[in-house]
């Protein structure tokens, strides 16, 4: 029996034997790593360093080898074998990943959670070894609203509440009015958003105190900039994409020129130009707010990328779709709006989402024109003499906030893709 064990491959006839041997090996393999990384105990101190280092991997490898038996009938075992233990190479990868998780998650968790400080209101309250979330707590309002006066922050809250409710209410629109939805989202939303921002956030009328855009900041500014850049860069991108494929040379070459120009310059220089050079071209006495200039700069920049994404979709459509649309008597605009774009845009939803995410993550660059959104506010807060050395906490927080925003957008785009799919 024991002799067979080492000469034959693990097989289903002696399933129990092989599985128990495998589990024992795996147990010791993980136990060694576990004790080693958490409690600094080396079970195999009596071996030389080299052997001791590779022992868990070897044990785990033997363990996984013994349980790699096909179609045992045990669902759990079969799943493991199929997903993470299909070949020797995969089993080694599995082991290394598990070891890495066991080794690195405890220090990470203890920094993030267990040893972290959340009570108190000054840097001195952070006595533990972990992260000092007090920093985030104290500066939270600044990270959300920038330098917007504390007493007026309800205005931002109200504005965003109204905006998000109106976006959310789209889901509850009765089927009858679905046709008006598109025109509403193209014309209505930007208008509502603009009015809200102009009258409520900016103020200056209806007895509301005027707050200059330089004071806006934090996450709310991230939203404002991304929102407007997103809704404007999308249609501009579509027109540029159509323009680039136009048969009229003037339109075609001006589109190409526009796209290649904006794709060729870094965003940070564009923003800088918008702040420094652009006002020089304006006639005397006219003035354009620097936030508006920044939004225009980002919009033009991203619309060039959007154009190329959309063009990819246009090129992916078979020529027959154009032929069929033309043969039914549809003119250029109807053909594109009713037949070509709905299909092309559906094809490039992943690319559009990509551009949108890139746009949102590009917004911190508006610091070059003196506008501080969330990452910018963190950059400012960490240089405060009372809060020196808090950069890690700040940027981890900013990263988490951006991740949440971008991940939800990404999920939304995946849902949209599924919803619009008409394949069988």
């Amino acid at each position: 029996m024991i002799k067979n064990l080492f000469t034959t491959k693990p097989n289903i006839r002696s399933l129990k034997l092989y599985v128990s041997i495998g589990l024992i090996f795996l147990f010791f393999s993980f136990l060694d790593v576990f004790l080693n990384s958490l409690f600094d105990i080396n079970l195999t101190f009596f071996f030389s360093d080299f052997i001791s280092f590779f022992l868990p991997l070897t044990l785990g490898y033997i363990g996984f080898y013994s349980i790699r038996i096909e179609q045992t009938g045990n669902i759990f075992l079969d799943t493991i074998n199929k997903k993470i233990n299909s070949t020797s190479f995969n089993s080694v990868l599995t082991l290394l990943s598990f070891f890495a998780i066991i080794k690195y998650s405890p220090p990470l968790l203890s920094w993030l959670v267990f040893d972290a400080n959340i009570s108190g209101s000054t840097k001195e309250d952070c006595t533990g070894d972990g992260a000092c979330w007090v920093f985030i707590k104290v500066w939270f309002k600044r990270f959300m609203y920038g330098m917007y006066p504390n007493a007026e922050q309800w205005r931002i809250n109200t504005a965003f509440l109204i905006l998000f409710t109106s976006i959310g209410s789209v889901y509850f629109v009765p089927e009858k009015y679905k046709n008006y939805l598109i025109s509403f989202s193209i014309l209505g939303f930007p208008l509502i958003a603009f009015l809200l921002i102009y009258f409520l956030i900016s103020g200056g009328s209806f007895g509301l105190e005027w707050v200059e855009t330089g004071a806006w900041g934090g996450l709310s500014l991230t939203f404002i900039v991304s929102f407007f850049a997103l809704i404007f860069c999308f249609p501009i991108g579509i027109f540029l994409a159509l323009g680039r494929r136009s048969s009229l040379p003037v339109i075609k070459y001006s589109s190409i020129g526009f796209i290649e120009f904006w794709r060729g310059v870094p965003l940070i220089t564009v923003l800088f130009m918008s702040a420094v050079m652009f006002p020089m071209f304006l006639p005397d006495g006219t003035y354009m707010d620097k936030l508006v200039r920044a939004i225009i700069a980002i919009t033009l920049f991203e619309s060039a990328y959007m154009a190329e994404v959309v063009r990819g979709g246009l090129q992916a459509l078979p020529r027959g779709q154009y032929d069929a649309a033309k043969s039914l008597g549809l003119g250029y605009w109807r053909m594109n709006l009713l037949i070509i774009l709905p299909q092309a845009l559906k094809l490039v939803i992943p690319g559009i989402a990509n551009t949108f995410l890139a746009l949102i993550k590009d917004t911190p660059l508006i610091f070059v024109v003196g506008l501080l959104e969330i990452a910018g506010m963190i950059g400012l807060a960490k240089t405060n003499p009372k809060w020196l050395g808090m950069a890690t906490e700040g940027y981890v927080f900013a990263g988490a906030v951006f991740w949440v925003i971008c991940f939800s957008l990404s999920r939304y785009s995946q849902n949209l893709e599924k919803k619009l799919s008409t394949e069988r």
Partner: protein
Amino acid sequence: MSNEIIKLKAVNKWFSDFQVLKDINLSVNQKEKIVICGPSGSGKSTLIRCINRLEEHQEGSIVVDGTEISAETKNIELIRADVGMVFQQFNLFPHLSILDNCTLALIWVKKLPKKKAEELAMKNLTRVQIDDQALKFPGQLSGGQQQRAAIARALCMEPKIMLFDEPTSALDPEMIKEVLDVMVDLAKGGMTMIVVTHEMGFAKEVADNMIFMDEGRIVEKAKTKDFFDNPKSDRTKLFLSQIL
């Protein structure tokens, strides 16, 4: 001839420096059925695509229903709306249901109210016997059903002329018949038809005139019976001997 609906006169066309159509002269009367055959690359598809200007011709004149078609033609869409076309690859719009495929042009080109457009679409879908598939998407239909839907879509516009560009070439043998049946039915209804096809049985049954093309020229144009029974040119004889 007063009831002449299509007239091509000395039409030449080049793809860069390759001449695809050479001195094409052709006239089609109302209610006439013409079948065009010939080896691949002989310019058959290009010829009928020129008739609704999916391709542009460089020389000669094409007159459809009294309107000359050229680069100067205003409102080419209006002419296209009167010329129905059915393609080898069906070219249904995959993002719209079969019903929406049919009503789209009625609503946006002919400006019919939605309800009327749907009635007309259902009438034509019934005519090609796929009214039960109206709410499905093209991807859910078989090839034969898709091609019949494409015919219905073209019929909805109530065209004066129907162009068929190898309508059965992309179909399984089993599905060819159901499409041909619809076309035979259409022919009997008095539609003016120009059909590019290799289905000689269909040609014998419905065609008034046969055209044989080779290397961009019309080699032979004859009454269907004469064409099959005693073709004049050797090239036609060779072609017929190979496909019959």
